[in-house]
């Protein structure tokens, strides 16, 4: 189909230059820091792989990593099925389709720190809508600055609010690409709703769901701004996710070496897990 043409490189050159400028130079800086020690004044000492060992052995890193995996796991397990369910129940055509899509996409267009601030004032115990409702109408003692569980529930709810629409829009795009003939054939065969979903809709959504899961994994694994603004990592360290911890080390304590080593480990984990997801989900296509 495609022509063999190495002129393609001329076409991609501008992209290559711009992305490489932004990706390779900072990445090399990080690699540099990760193997050196500095006491300021731009004097550096060779440190070898000490920082990597230190990070990999530190309890602080392990617990931040654990919280990060728990967060991402919960996000995926809630947002993916919920997104599919909502997409399935949306109208396929007519006036309401664009209205639904625009309203649903709205949360994704709000700057991330505004999302955090918005949820902060939404959940304030005495003057926020949700906080007031929970505390004074339902009588549940809810205060996420005190209670780690409440903080977790809040950041999870916030992320579900923020990003489920991405899964909805992707699944919906997969659904509308199914020709009506498929449904008619299923009707003639007397297929149940479940088998229509299992054998027609789900396979057709596979590509877009792969994109959805990958994007949700990467973005939730790298999440920083929203939980930082909402909880600041607290109470205690209970919602200190990986990137919040990383920024604390890098900019708060100015420990450049350990922070750089941690960045590289972090990046490697993201790459590895993304690759695993990708291989697992596209395995059937290759056979």
């Amino acid at each position, binding site marked *: 189909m*495609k022509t063999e043409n*190495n*002129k*393609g*490189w001329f*076409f*991609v050159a501008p*992209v*290559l230059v711009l*992305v490489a*400028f*932004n990706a390779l130079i*900072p*990445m090399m*800086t*990080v690699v540099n820091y990760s193997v050196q020690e500095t006491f300021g004044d731009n004097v550096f000492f060779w440190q070898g792989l000490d920082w990597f060992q230190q990070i990999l052995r530190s309890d602080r890193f392990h617990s931040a990593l654990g919280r990060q995996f728990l967060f991402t796991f919960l996000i995926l397990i809630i947002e993916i099925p919920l997104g599919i369910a*909502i997409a399935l*129940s949306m109208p396929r055509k007519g006036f309401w389709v*664009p209205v*639904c899509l*625009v*309203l*649903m996409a*709205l*949360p*994704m*267009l*709000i*700057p991330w*720190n*505004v999302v955090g*601030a*918005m949820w902060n*004032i939404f959940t304030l115990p005495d*003057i926020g809508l*949700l906080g007031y409702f929970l505390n004074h109408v339902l009588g549940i003692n809810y205060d996420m600055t005190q209670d780690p569980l409440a903080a977790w529930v809040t950041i999870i709810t916030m992320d579900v609010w923020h990003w489920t629409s*991405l899964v909805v*829009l*992707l699944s919906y795009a997969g659904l*509308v690409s199914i020709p009506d003939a498929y449904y008619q054939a299923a009707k003639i065969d007397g297929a149940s709703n479940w088998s229509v979903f299992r054998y027609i809709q789900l396979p057709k959504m596979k*590509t877009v769901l*792969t*994109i959805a899961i990958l994007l949700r994994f*990467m973005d939730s694994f*790298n999440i*920083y*701004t929203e939980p930082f*603004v909402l909880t600041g990592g607290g109470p205690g360290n209970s919602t200190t996710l990986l*990137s919040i911890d990383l*920024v604390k080390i*890098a*900019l708060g304590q100015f420990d*450049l070496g350990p922070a750089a080593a941690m*960045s590289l480990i*972090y*990046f490697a984990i*993201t*790459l590895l897990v*993304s690759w695993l997801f*990708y291989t697992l989900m596209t395995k059937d296509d290759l056979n």
Partner: protein
Amino acid sequence: MQKRSIVPIVYILFLLLPIYWLVAMSFKTTNEILAGFSLFPQTFTLENYKTIFTDPSWYWGYINSILYVSINTVISVVVALPAAYAFSRYRFLGDKQLFFWLLTNRMAPAAVFALPFFQLYSAVGLFDTHLAVALAHCLFNIPLAVWILEGFMGGVPKELDETAFVDGYSFPRFFATIFVPSIKAGVGVAAFFCFMFSWVELLLAKTLTAVAAKPIAATMTKTASSAGYELGLLAAAGTLTIIPGAIVIYFVRNYIAKGFAMGRV
């Protein structure tokens, strides 16, 4: 009205509740907010908005944000167009590896890059300019634009190219007057996504600016802490950040679902 439409309705209500609360707060005075719970603004005030529209340190935040987001969108789409064409039409040495490498740049946490970005852009003398933020956001927007555009281009039959060349079109003329117009929707969707991801990003934008190109999101965090706890003002500023996105999304409403589904995995 079908029974199942209850699901999207409930979901949309859930989405709108926090937004309603933000908007409602923006019309309250800070005193009213702190005095206690009220579902609707009791003393309706536009004072918060007036502050924002009359104080340069506030409204310049919006102008700065819109400036760098626009520059970024233009750069991303313009350089992504030929690249996406190459990926969709040609096979060349290392094309698959290059494509994958581009996508991996979406996986790098911005927190990793904050400090090196600061040093890099300081070193080239671009620190605190709109161009710096626009270029930095290219890191994740260009791969995305290439990805989306490549998907749309794949849907254009190759015969279009061949016919044009037989008719004597030069490549640049064919590309600009025939090919790009034929994927208008794709360009719109790609531009929309670039706008969106540049608009919502804060960490890099904040790291790369100080005064002259400071984004609105950074203005908000600073003013909120220095002026005590001005919730009303914060809510008004937040409300205003939703508007550009809402306007942009309106233009691509019919293509947005399609844009998501495009592109190969």
